């Protein structure tokens, strides 16, 4: 009976035109190399200080495409201007280096950081397209892709912990690494 009442209430809300503006997306790995792996999750290097994001790498720099991770068409806003780099350690763009933001509703966003720019780099709407090259711009120690899912600027972890992504998980572009909220 209680379930029925709840169902009726949900139906009534939808009928009244109310619907939440956020939803779960699916994020896949950013590098189309089967060697790509997750190197940091909630903690840096999996045992250090708090990180609350995924760092993914295949051990190369400026060779492989850094791809959009959301597996449907989304708008990727580009913030560039940092010189390409394979060692990092700069404060360009507040340490984010060259990066992209997918902006969702209610303060949610999904970011991909530290890429080296190339002809593919720039704001665009696409589905898992090339955004630049895996690089190390900004506050980074070696080439990798940093991905985080934030609400009002606070990084959340459930988007990758909920699907079991952990240190050593595959970051290949056909492998689901998380379900970010957007």
């Amino acid at each position: 009976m209680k379930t029925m009442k709840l169902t009726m209430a949900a139906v009534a809300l939808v009928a009244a035109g109310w619907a939440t503006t956020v939803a779960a997306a699916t994020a896949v790995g950013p590098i189309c190399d089967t060697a790509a792996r997750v190197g940091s999750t909630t903690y840096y290097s999996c045992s250090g200080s708090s990180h609350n994001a995924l760092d993914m790498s295949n051990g190369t720099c400026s060779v492989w495409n850094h791809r959009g991770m959301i597996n449907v068409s989304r708008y990727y806003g580009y913030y560039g201007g940092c010189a390409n780099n394979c060692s990092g350690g700069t404060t360009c763009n507040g340490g984010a280096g060259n990066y992209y933001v997918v902006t969702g509703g209610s303060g949610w966003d999904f970011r991909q950081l530290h890429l080296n720019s190339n002809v593919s780099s720039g704001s665009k709407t696409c589905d898992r397209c090339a955004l630049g090259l895996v690089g190390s711009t900004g506050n980074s120690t070696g080439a990798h892709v940093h991905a985080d899912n934030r609400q009002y600027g606070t990084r959340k972890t459930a988007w990758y912990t909920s699907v079991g992504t952990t240190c050593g998980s595959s970051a290949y572009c056909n492998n689901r690494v998380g379900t970010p909220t957007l």
Partner: protein
Amino acid sequence: MHPTTMKTLKRAALASALLSLFPASALATGPQTTPLKPATCTVESMLDDVRAALKGGSPALQRYVKWRLREAALAMPAEGLQAALARETDPAVLEALGGALATKASNAESPALVQPLLARASGDSDPAIRAAAVRGLRGVPSVEFMEKNGGVVTYEQLVRDASPEVRAAVADNLVSESADVYSGHDRRVSEAAVATAAAAEDPAVAAKLLGEVSMEAVGPAAVEQVTNQLRAEDPKLRAAAATALGGVPGAASQGARGSLVDLFKNDKDPAVRKAALQGIARLGMSGAKPVLESLRGVDRAMDPEIDAWLSALSLNLQEWELLLREKQRLRR
């Protein structure tokens, strides 16, 4: 008993137990009678699977074959997909194929790939095919694709189609694109929706576009177009325009509020007046209280609605969705 013999017996017992789980018929038609054969992955073979699943498969199987076609299309030559799309006559298969081609275009950032889909959407003699082709463009940056293909086919043109199925597909695409691709933040899609609503001769379609597409990024010209719809003949369209005006950017909020106050005072339709109050509340949030107070008594039947908004606004909720949900909890 020797440990090795014991282990062998245990294995035999386990194998026997497992075998008993399978019906005899399943064993009879095992791999010996139907050996696996290598298959070539082609557009045609995948379409055969899609066709069979869409005819008699479960909803889950139908979703799966469509998803598989989309993913496979990323690696398939575009020419094969385009040729198959040009000759397809089944609307459901064409929609799946169109979706796969549009996904490939989005992935490869190559809008020209969807030209055959646009051609079917605008020029096919079968309205079911035209509607399916439009639906094939759902979930991709279709407004941008149309512009980059020279604006030869636009939603403003498609919304004047004689078939209601095509017109409905146009509205669904724009609503979906604004919400799912851009989370409501894109000016181009929102303005395309406003222009499409203005071009529509079907008030239900225009009302859906104005009522459901985000207006948070539209420019002054689009705000004016929405304001003009407050004078539409159809009350549902007037109500949708009032809802849309409630979501325009801050720079346009003063003029929009004035238009909504005038609408509330002069329009006799209760649904339109209700939408006007919602628009006023959304534009001003807690700052809308004096305006809402001033509207008490204009129509006594609407006073409980104003009271509900004032109660919800008194909670000082910071997000529109939370405020709307609270108001709907108090009064639907």
